């Protein structure tokens, strides 16, 4: 690799040019036609703003789903490593992973107790 720092400088240059140029360009030539759809938040495709249920307290179920998903998703990321060299990691690995599982379980319990799973 010759002059390996050149990519970084390029990155810098590109970033600067794009940052300023992009801001400028979008300000100048960009069409200023916003509509609800453009500004809408993405909420798994459902109509994002139902009328305030329970007087302004909004259902965060979808996010609970997302979070719950992540709880287990993350679990797998590490469990997989552990699984493949279970025997080599031996006791240390076991204890560590169990600890990790416990830690992961705590927010799960919290969510459960706070009614995070009471969908419908």
């Amino acid at each position, binding site marked *: 690799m010759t002059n390996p*720092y050149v990519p*970084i*400088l390029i990155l*810098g*240059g590109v*970033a*600067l040019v794009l*940052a*300023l140029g992009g*801001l400028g360009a979008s300000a100048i030539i960009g069409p200023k036609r916003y509509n609800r759809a453009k500004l809408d938040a993405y909420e798994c495709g459902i109509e994002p703003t139902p009328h305030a249920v329970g007087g302004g307290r909004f259902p965060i179920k979808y996010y609970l789903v997302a979070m719950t998903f992540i709880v287990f998703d993350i679990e797998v990321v590490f469990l997989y490593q552990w699984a493949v060299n279970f025997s080599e990691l031996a006791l240390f690995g076991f204890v560590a992973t169990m600890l990790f599982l416990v830690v992961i379980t705590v927010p799960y319990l919290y969510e459960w107790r706070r009614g995070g799973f009471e969908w419908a």
Partner: protein
Amino acid sequence: MSVHTLTAARLPFADLAVPVAPSGPWQESAWLLVAVPLVSAAVLLLAGRRSDRWGHWLGVAASAASFVIGALILVSLLQAPVGERVVEVDLFDWISAGQLTLAAGLRLDPLSLTFVMLVTFVGSLIHVYSVAYMDADVDRRRFFAYLNLFVAAMLLLVLADSFVLLFMGWEGVGLASYLLIGFWNHRTEYAVAAKKAFIANRVGDLGLLIAMMAMFATVGALDFTSVFGAVGSMDTSTATIIGLALLLAACGKSAQFPLQSWLGDAMAGPTPVSALIHAATMVTAGVYLVVRSAPIYEAAPDAQLAVVVVGAITLLFGAIVGCAKDDIKKALAASTMSQIGYMMLAAGLGPVGYAFAIFHLVTHGFFKAGMFLGAGSVMHGMNDQVDMRRFGGLARYMKITWVTFGLGWLAIIGVPPFSGFFSKDKIIEAAFMPVAGAEWRAWLFGSVVLIGAGLTAFYMSRLFFMTFHGEKRWTTAAEGAEQHPHESPRLMTWPMVVLAVGSVALGGLLSIGGVFTTWLEPVVGHTEHADPVLPIPVIMASTLVLVLLGAFLAWRQYAASTVPQVAPAGSALTRAARRDLYQDEVNDAVLVGPGAYLTRSLVYGDRQVVDGAVVGVAHVTVGIAERVRKLQNGYVRSYAATMLAGAVVLLVVVLVTRI
């Protein structure tokens, strides 16, 4: 315990005593001098209402305790041989970073101990007096807390062995004085007075700060020993700058021209405060500073001359103002101003004057404090009336006050054999000392102090006669409260008596064989007396003639003839004098105005006003600030853009060196 050596500054400071380690328990425990009143003040403030019943006595006890300790140290110092009368007590290394170390230590020498004695003795008397004077006040405890705070700060100021520590004391007394002037701050004009004193003092502090920076820049240290030691190697211009800066500081603290205007308003504070802080001790701190910095002034003749000039101006200024004031306390304040002018002038005269400046300072401390207490006692008897045109003929009603005040009066106008005579006469002689190459000085300043003596005699006699003699001009029932003057309680009269004794005898006792001047020699150096341009008897005689003349005129106008109850229009000069020769107008333009602007701008952050307040630099700064502020436009994306731009710039800064 570190031992310092003084590399010889120029004469006459070559013979100065070298600081030595303390010997004996009392010198070791000098820190108690400051600690005791400080602790007492803290107790009084923290204990709150609970201590209302006994608080004031604690205050008195604390002040008295410092006096006792001081006395013991004094004795131990007197026993020491003259060569070892400059003692340095290292307390602790305050901050030590890298090579640099700030140490806190006390310096016990004749000069500082003289002040310790004056402050604690007069201070204790005034504490006692205040017990009675502030009897009616619900906040008496707080008052005593502030008094103790003041005593502690003042002692720190005079005992400090470095300009840093001195500065702390300097600020401390400023704070205490501010708190005490504004003690009755529910009355607006008093709060205003407090603020005025505050501003004037800050200007002074600026001077002290500049001086300290200059010293640090040139010497690299701020303790007296090293600074004065390095003076010899300092070039004259630096010394002059430092000297002038110190003079500015002294002017702010000691109400010297052009920063004197606050003292009159400071009389808004309770009378004991005026007696202790604004007559006997704090306002003389400026003189202390000049005398303490003697080596610097010796190296800077121009700065020295400036000191003399300031002293001379203030001397006349105060005297003229004093002739026109009808408010008894303001008249006394004016005279204080003028007397400190005397001391400044003497301090500016160099080695011939230092000792006498301090000498006059001590005697003045006694008789002026005495007279202020007398004034307080008069007000006490006259329902807080301060207009002398409504006094008159009080001699018969308050005998002790009359006698004590009278003795103080005789002392200040310099009638032999009272204290003032000895101290002031010496200053007059010193003023007539010929200065090589500038004979005009001797004549100019000599005549100034002579005239000053005459004026002093006039306005003090005026004050005395208007108050105690002539016919009664009291407010009658028709005008409101009818006056029933009466003598004050013992707690108030006794301190007055003690001080009166001092104003009679002290001067004489201390000048027997020049005991006082020799006592100070380790600090201010020894000088052989040259002969003044006029023979001493002539000087003395002319002084006395002028004094008697002044007193006689005052008697004819204010005792023998009737005094109008309402001030007559008077001449232009009189009117000017009544208004402090328009100093306020000047200062309002110079100091207070911007100050007010500042405060207002601070409230509403009004840009114009900010600019108006801190002219020049602020303009640019605020301009920049506003630009930068524009960047803070609240848009996340532009923040992110700033960050990225910053990142790119930094990357370039780093990498460019390698390409």
